[in-house]
């Protein structure tokens, strides 16, 4: 029993990342009808926003401390980050420590800007072209973005830590009356799960309860009619693209402490996220979220030793296997709407 709960918990953080990326993909697909292969790259850029902010905060100047000597006997050079000098040591240290959560605010404008530029500069010209062309051009864009990041940050993963408060693990077992240490779960993953439910909730609330969201939903259902009513639907869809980019970026920012960002993390997640979108049903937002969590949890169940000894290798292929079965038995995916990309 405790093992099952542990696996569900383990699946949740990966599942939340899948769900967030798949949500963004579905938003773009549902509004603009574009299959965006560069969405993984947006996730990666988000993660590198966190890296950048922590690097910026760590920019230091050197002072020579005459009282101390290093191992060669020379006066010790002490590095002090500028933020510590400006805001005092305590506030400065706290700022550096909290660089990842702070990067949320830093990344939102950047991601929205990236999304705008992508949509206005490139994707706009591909609405009328075949899906294969859209896949190809965004695939090319993903390669370019990835290589640009690699050029500036190098090919190695860059560890980016969570704030000290969230380091360590939380003992879940005690809460539910199990033995201590039976179910331990890192705090940051809990934060990640909470954060992603918050984002998913706010995206849904935004679409459901605002006038803007209502227009966007109407546009998703019937773009032409909305246009005929005198509403500039293209502009709103561009904004939605920016929001989708921001969602992917935020997923990346918060994922940085879980997995050190490297330049190809986007591609790794992209393939899985596409599978998630297809399983959830192309164009269905709840489907994407549901499938994201479902596949995340399934993946972690499959990596349990008991199941692995039963069917060797299942942990490696479970997601793809589920996708194949779903695509063949329920062509529309779990919650796909009728008439949306059925062929």
């Amino acid at each position: 029993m405790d093992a099952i709960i542990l696996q569900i918990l383990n699946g949740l953080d990966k599942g939340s990342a899948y769900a967030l990326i798949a949500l963004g993909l579905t938003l773009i697909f549902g509004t603009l009808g574009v299959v965006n292969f560069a969405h993984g790259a947006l996730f990666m850029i988000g993660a590198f926003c966190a890296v950048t902010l922590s690097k910026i905060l760590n920019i230091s100047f050197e002072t020579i401390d005459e009282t101390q000597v290093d191992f060669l006997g020379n006066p010790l050079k002490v590095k002090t980050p500028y933020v510590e000098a400006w805001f005092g040591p305590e506030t400065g240290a706290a700022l550096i420590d909290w660089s990842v959560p702070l990067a949320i605010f830093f990344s939102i404008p950047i991601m929205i800007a990236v999304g705008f530029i992508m949509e206005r500069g490139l994707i706009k010209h591909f609405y009328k072209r075949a899906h294969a062309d859209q896949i190809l051009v965004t695939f090319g864009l993903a390669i370019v973005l990835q290589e640009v990041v690699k050029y500036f940050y190098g090919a190695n993963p860059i560890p980016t830590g969570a704030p000290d408060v969230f380091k360590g693990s939380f003992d879940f077992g005690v809460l539910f009356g199990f033995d201590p240490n039976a179910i331990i779960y890192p705090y940051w993953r809990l934060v990640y799960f909470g954060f992603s439910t918050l984002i998913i909730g706010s995206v849904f609330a935004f679409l459901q309860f605002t006038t803007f969201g209502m227009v966007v939903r109407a546009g998703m259902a019937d773009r032409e009619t909305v246009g005929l009513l005198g509403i500039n639907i293209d502009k709103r869809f561009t904004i939605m693209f920016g929001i989708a980019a921001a969602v992917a970026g935020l997923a990346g920012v918060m994922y940085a402490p879980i997995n050190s960002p490297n330049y190809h993390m986007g591609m790794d997640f992209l393939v899985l996220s596409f599978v998630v979108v297809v399983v959830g049903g192309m164009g269905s937002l709840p489907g994407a979220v549901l499938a994201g969590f479902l596949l995340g949890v399934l993946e972690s169940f499959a990596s349990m030793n008991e199941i692995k000894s039963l069917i060797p290798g299942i942990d490696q292929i479970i997601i793809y296997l589920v996708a194949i079965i779903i695509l063949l038995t329920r062509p529309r995916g779990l919650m796909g709407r009728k008439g949306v990309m059925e062929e």
Partner: protein
Amino acid sequence: MLGLNKHDRTLLIIVAILTMCAPFILNPFPTDSGMAQFNAGYPDLMQRFVIFGIFAIGFNILFGLTGYLSFGHAAFLGVGSYSAVWMFKLLSMNVIPAILLAMIISGLFAVLIGYVSLRRSGIYFSILTLAFAQMSFNLAYSVLTPITNGETGLQLTLDDPRILGVSATADGGIPVTSLFGLEMRSTYEMAVGPWAFQFNAGYYLCALIMLASFYLSIRIFRSPFGMMLRAVKSNQTRLNYTGLNPRPYTLAAFVISGMYAGLAGGLMASMDPLAGAERMQWTASGEVVLMSILGGAGTLIGPVLGAGFIKYFENIFSKINDTVLHNWFAFLPDGLEDAVVFIIHPFIGKGWHLTLGILFMLVVIFLPGGLVEGGQRIRRLFSKKPADDGKPAATKPAE
């Protein structure tokens, strides 16, 4: 001759001449000149040209004719490589059985994957093939380690139980791959003045097989079967209404193109008897997509051009470094020289993928017909006849 019309025959002959004379054509610079590093006429690279040419020709039979975009074609290449290496381990070092087995196994594999994937079309087909390829890749890395040797990759060892042949040569080395005694790695070097031309047995075997596959692909393009595949691409619904079931045709195309990929994998293993799982990764599938699109999908010569182009520039660009650039731009004033080198720097050496990505995007955006269409546009620009405005402006790639 050969059942081809005049135009196709000329094309085939041109390709034949180009591949047969490749050791000369790709070696235009004397060995002692500064440009020698841009020579591509050494066996390893030439083999890669033709092998990836075969791979791209096969991919084009599926994508170019039927419009089904497979994102998992590298799986067949990997399966072909593995089966060829197993043949070397178990049967003999002759490349013929290895290549045959590679084609058969990858063909069977393609029947299996194609049967399932072709039930859907469009983006779903792409995702399904991608899913299958990733599954094969993951399995090759983990559970199938007894067959694939996991991360290390499958290699020949000194104690392989080779039925026809010896486990180790007399001097204790691993035997090399051969075609009835003709070693694949044997190279004849011809020195003409300052030039050194290399003629490699393996290259010529690959080149001959490439020509044969190119010929076969011309025949497929011109056959009623090819017409049928094009009909699938242009309007599948209409095909259904005429009472035809397109699935057997698409499946046949999928299997043929999978066997081409298996052939390429088998040849790759024949030239260098090792196989690794990374050959099956989806980036490798992406590469063959890039080749076909860059050259011109749906045209005969396009994929071969694309494969040659990408492999050539991958090799050349990776070799250029800042010193070379400084030499090139030495004629500029110092400050300007540094600025130019600084601008170009991200695109060379390790930055080759960046260049490739940008190039690929430009081709997809402005030149959907690839290099072939580019060539046609240039020809039209210079042709004496005024552009035929009466005809629809749609650029029909030459085939």
